[in-house]
């Protein structure tokens, strides 16, 4: 059923595009726009949580423990970013891999979205209802990813 959902999602997006590559680019762009919306809300939430945790914590260990749920959200956003870049690279090299590779990376993007959805829930961050709904639908395609998206380098190394 999940594979069928993914196929339907991709077929539906083709209404906006003429070729399979354009369909794939539409899916990637729409997903990236959704991740950007989550990133904007999460950045403010992170700053607010950090301010409260800094005031309430007596040492770095307590601070890190307080920040752990929203640290996981920050990491999940970076994973989604990497998954989207990987998907875009597959679309750029479409002739080399074709639609089969695209279906695999699209499922991995969905897996990354599911990780974001879970992290948002765990961190208790409030998002607009339509964004939560879109995330839930997109992440329901997670079953087709052959392996979990790779964890990105630590935030300290990202620049």
């Amino acid at each position, binding site marked *: 059923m999940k594979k069928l959902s993914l196929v339907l999602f991709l077929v539906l*997006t083709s209404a906006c595009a003429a070729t399979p590559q354009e369909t794939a680019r539409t899916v990637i762009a729409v997903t990236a726009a959704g991740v950007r919306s989550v990133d904007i809300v999460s950045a403010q939430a992170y700053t607010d949580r950090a301010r409260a945790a800094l005031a309430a914590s007596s040492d770095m260990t307590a601070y890190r423990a307080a920040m752990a749920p929203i640290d996981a959200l920050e990491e999940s956003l970076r994973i989604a970013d990497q998954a989207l870049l990987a998907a875009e690279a597959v679309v750029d090299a479409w002739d080399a891999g074709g639609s089969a590779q695209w279906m695999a990376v699209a499922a991995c993007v969905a897996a990354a979205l599911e990780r974001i959805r879970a992290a948002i829930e765990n961190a208790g961050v409030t998002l607009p209802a339509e964004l939560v709904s879109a995330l839930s639908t997109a992440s329901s395609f997670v079953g087709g990813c052959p392996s979990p998206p790779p964890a990105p380098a630590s935030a*300290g190394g990202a620049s």
Partner: protein
Amino acid sequence: MTPELVVLIIEAGAELAKSLIAAFAQGDHTILQRRIQDILPAPLLTTIAKKLADAEAEKKFGVAP
């Protein structure tokens, strides 16, 4: 086509439409032609927030062992 399939198509179409509307509502009418690096900031805003917060925490508590 089963009723379940019809419902799924309608739901998926509605969610896609919501995402597109959200992008357009942000004034981003060209978003479908843009590349990831033009849509998502590098680093992400949340990652920047984390770096700034980590710096504040290190200033208060010292660098973590």
